[in-house]
């Protein structure tokens, strides 16, 4: 437990460091939201000065950081100039949607990767192994942009899935179960794009770590005792192969979050990605800052979850032996 607490503390420190780093980055950048207004002849120099003073942009850097931290403490995360509101209320619904998308994709991807990878590791035929290898290499080489666009094409062409968005028109009128169904239908394609993008990586790792374990003496011993093949795989090989896979789980979250940024924009899923793009194009720096922090928070939380899983799965960590 102390180990987990230490990891949590470490995560907090990381978040603090990321906040300082990204704040410095954003503040040291040339120009601000009001710089674009200067080109507008209807806005006078005095108005601009007044606007800057109202939002505290004329203060020295440390004071601005402290003001920003104070707004963090109030749960506002700074002020979005483009939307004219604190950042946090804009952020939370988007973060929830991104979390829904990436969590679904992670769950589905792992649920597919473990059986496929295990099966691949136990395959005997050369031809079948090469076929599977070639298939996943091709899938790995498909850029996620093409993958997302191809799935969108499927939606546009067939009409089986809604093309983009998260809810249909008239979502509010649906019953509770109808609403869930509606969101699931919209979720299917973006989640599929993410799953297909990470699946080849996951499957190859599952196969590698299972293959390493399947040759181990204790597995042969278990077979020699006459245990069934499923029993050998599930209760002897898989737990032993779990440790590197759980570390990969943390890493795969990072990849998924990055990929979801693009997939969300292409499929107009109302997550953090489209908001980030909007904020960049509007030069709304505090919103960018809030989004980066939110994504980091999701990643740190995911890594903490991976650590907790590791603690549950690996007795060496529980007893403190390394």
């Amino acid at each position, binding site marked *: 437990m102390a180990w987990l607490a230490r990891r949590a503390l470490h995560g907090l420190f990381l978040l603090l460091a990321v906040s300082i780093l990204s704040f410095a*980055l954003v503040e040291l950048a040339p120009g601000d939201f009001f710089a674009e207004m200067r080109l507008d002849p209807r806005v006078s120099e005095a108005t601009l000065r007044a606007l800057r003073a109202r939002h505290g942009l004329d203060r020295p850097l440390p004071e601005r950081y402290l003001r920003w931290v104070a707004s963090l403490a109030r749960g506002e995360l700074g002020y979005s100039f483009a939307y004219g509101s604190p950042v946090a209320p804009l952020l939370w619904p988007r973060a929830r949607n991104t979390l829904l998308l990436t969590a679904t994709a992670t769950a589905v991807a792992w649920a597919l990767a473990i059986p496929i990878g295990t099966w691949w590791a136990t395959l005997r035929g050369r031809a079948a192994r090469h076929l599977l290898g070639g298939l996943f290499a091709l899938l790995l080489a498909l850029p996620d942009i093409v993958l997302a*666009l191809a799935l969108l094409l499927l939606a546009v062409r067939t009409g089986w899935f809604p093309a983009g968005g998260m809810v249909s028109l008239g979502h509010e009128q649906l019953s509770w179960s109808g609403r869930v169904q509606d969101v699931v239908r919209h979720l299917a394609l973006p989640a599929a794009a993410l799953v297909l993008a990470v699946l080849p990586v996951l499957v190859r790792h599952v196969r590698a770590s299972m293959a390493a374990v399947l040759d181990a003496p204790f597995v042969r011993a278990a077979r020699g005792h006459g245990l069934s093949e499923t029993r050998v795989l599930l209760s002897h090989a898989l737990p032993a192969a779990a440790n590197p896979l759980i570390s990969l789980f943390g890493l795969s979250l990072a990849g998924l979050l990055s990929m979801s940024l693009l997939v969300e*924009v292409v499929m107009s899923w109302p997550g953090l990605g489209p908001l980030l793009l909007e904020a960049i194009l509007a030069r709304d720096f505090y919103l960018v800052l809030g989004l980066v922090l939110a994504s980091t928070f999701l990643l740190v939380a995911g890594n903490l979850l991976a650590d907790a899983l590791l603690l549950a799965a690996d007795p060496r960590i529980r007893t403190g032996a390394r």
Partner: protein
Amino acid sequence: MALGLAVLATVHLAALGASFLAPYAPGRQNRTLPYASPTRVHVVDGAGHVHLRPFVHALSEAPGPGGAYEEDRSRAFPVRFLVRDDPEPRAPEGRLHLFGVEEPARIFLLGTDGFGRDQLSRLLHGAQISLFAGLLATVLSLATGWLLGTLAGFYGRWLDGIVMRAAEVFLALPWLYLLFAVRAVLPLHVSAGQAFLMLVLVIGLVDWARPARLVRGVVLSARERNYVLAARGFGASDLYLIRRHIAPQTFGLLLTQAALLVPQYILAEVTLSFLGLGVSEPVPSWGNMLAALQRYNVLASYWWMWAPGLALVPVFLAYFSLSEALHARVGPASP
């Protein structure tokens, strides 16, 4: 590995020779021929005669709605090789092209985009930007990572502490978000050349942390080898030790990392340009060419607009086979 290298060599040579291989300049518009499908190259004419020299027909808009085109069968335009196009200030004799046809016919082997620009020419010119942005960013990222990793591993103590803590912070950010955040604070409207340099710098400098950590690991173990200790005992300077004994140990790792990073960075450039944050029109990059597919009608109707996306597949496959071959030869990229 041989096949992978051959594919990469071909693609990069084609990109370098874009202005010769491409029949048209990438910005040349044919406003009357938007979204023309790939030009049909004929060998047999209407009377059933076989021509040794392939020919094309001129296109004109078909009557009726729908933007279809029909061929004007009355006149054939043979495909000519090694043709010169119209003189321009920078090339008074006209530029030499591998192939072309006489006006008013056009040859669009991969069709045209919404402005009637030849997709093949844009694909070749776009490769210059997309492929080389990936390569240059990789060089930059590995150079930064190598320098910081070597310094941290070799001198240890507080320097090691600072570099590794900083690396952890960088790795705690989802990298595309970090990339976008850095891109966010840079000016939005820049010329294509500036955008290219900016992308290379941003992509290369944002991702130094992973190579730095890997290099540090190798340097840490190399530093304690007996021959390094012996050389140090003979009074070798730090610079000499790094140059002669430490650096060569890290080269295998750098090579394997490069094969992994280049496709990732090519994709980063494509993604940024796709979203309008990278190289902007009219200069072609594979990313901003794909951006046309964000409109549903283009996505569903004009398959040749997918060309840049499909061109990425063999390039990526080649890099993956290269990275696997390197992995088997010089050891894993991540120890």
